[in-house]
């Protein structure tokens, strides 16, 4: 195992938080012109915009810390699959509306706790981004919770379908609460968030909303790992970045 310098750890840490926002934000933007109603579409696009905006701030900070003249765009458009350390949950396909809502709900419950803690980081820039992002992800959590309750406590079919989504995506949540190399390197200095400590509160939020939604909390705690720890992604990821990075790969440095 290689040891990261503090500077490299900080670059990776800022970038990996940004990766979660960019990838789930990009996934949600794939709903543009396809959502079931215009209100649902606007809501998803608003949330996606917040998440991509957060990613921009984090990538800009990573680029500044890196100090090699890179910009936020280098992080988004010119890194390879292995360099992205997003949680696998964020790259899961949109599926139906229920899949998208469950993914957003599980991630927003995590984000709410994560950004609350990041707001206390000893790193002033990360703390500022944490405080700003918290206001936004609180909205995402409310929006996705309301939909989860509506679908879970809805018709027999909506209930069953959203339960299936939950059972499927559950295995991608365990990874969120495991520390990776960058997080470990920055923990003692009070810069990174101890994500293992977020699990209990996350369980409470999830259990509360699932209860209202009459859904069953999955009990299988086996987890898919690899995205956050070493950039080993699911088969879906390559398609995301080939779509997202196409212009910069085909026409390097193009601007408009």
């Amino acid at each position, binding site marked *: 195992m290689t040891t990261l310098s503090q500077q490299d750890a900080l670059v990776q840490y800022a970038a990996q938080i940004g990766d979660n926002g960019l990838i789930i934000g990009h996934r949600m933007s794939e709903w543009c012109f396809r959502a079931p109603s215009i*209100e649902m579409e*606007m*809501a998803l696009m*608003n*949330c*996606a*915009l*917040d*998440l*991509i*905006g*957060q990613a*921009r*701030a984090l990538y800009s900070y990573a680029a500044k810390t890196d100090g090699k003249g890179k910009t936020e765009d280098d992080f988004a458009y010119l890194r390879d699959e292995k360099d992205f350390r997003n949680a696998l949950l964020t790259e899961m396909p949109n599926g139906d509306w229920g899949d998208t809502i469950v993914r957003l709900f599980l991630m927003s419950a995590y984000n709410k706790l994560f950004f609350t803690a990041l707001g206390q980081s000893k790193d*002033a820039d990360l*703390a*500022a*981004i944490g*405080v*700003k*992002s918290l*206001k*936004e992800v*609180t*909205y995402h959590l*409310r*929006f996705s*919770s*309301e939909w989860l309750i509506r679908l879970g406590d809805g018709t027999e079919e909506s209930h069953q379908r959203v339960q299936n989504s939950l059972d499927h995506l559950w295995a991608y949540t365990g990874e969120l609460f495991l520390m990776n190399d960058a997080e470990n390197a920055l923990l003692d200095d009070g810069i990174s968030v101890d994500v293992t400590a977020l699990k209990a509160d996350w369980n409470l939020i999830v259990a509360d909303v699932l209860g209202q939604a009459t859904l069953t909390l999955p009990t299988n705690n086996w987890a898919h790992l690899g995205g956050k720890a070493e950039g080993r992604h699911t088969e879906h990821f390559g398609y995301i970045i080939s779509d997202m990075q196409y212009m910069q790969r085909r026409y390097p440095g193009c601007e408009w």
Partner: protein
Amino acid sequence: MATHVKNLDPAEIWALLENVKDPEIPVLSIVDLGIAREVKFDADGQLEIIISPTYSGCPAMYMLEEQIRETLINHGYPGPVITTKLFPAWTTDWMTEDGKKKLEAYGIAPPEKTTRNKSVLFGGQKKISCPRCQSKNSEQISEFGSTACKALYRCLDCREPFDYFKCI
């Protein structure tokens, strides 16, 4: 009045910033919105404007920066530095009272004061006054409106739908 870098009057800069309007809500300036935070001159007379975005992904920020730069340059302040500051995070409490009045006259319900009441945050809805007939008998149609900063409401008395500038 000819203005040059020698004439370093923050009040004049603030007056110029009043001319920079939000592209989505053209009745409001960046001063009304509380986006423009600080006007500073360093020892060499270098002008710096500190701005804070409303939402992280607000697509208007780049355009606003360009407009600030253009306005200042056109009025004899060359090369202003525009710095984006995230902390403290922008809040609707920074919107001026004057701004709130202009917003309401424009047909958008202004933000209520932020609250620590958790029921409002989760499920419970605030009663928002209709900017047209002032009735508080309104309901939320959508948590999200045409831009990140607005939600969509409907007045149950005059039946008009309206935007509400949500409070964060």
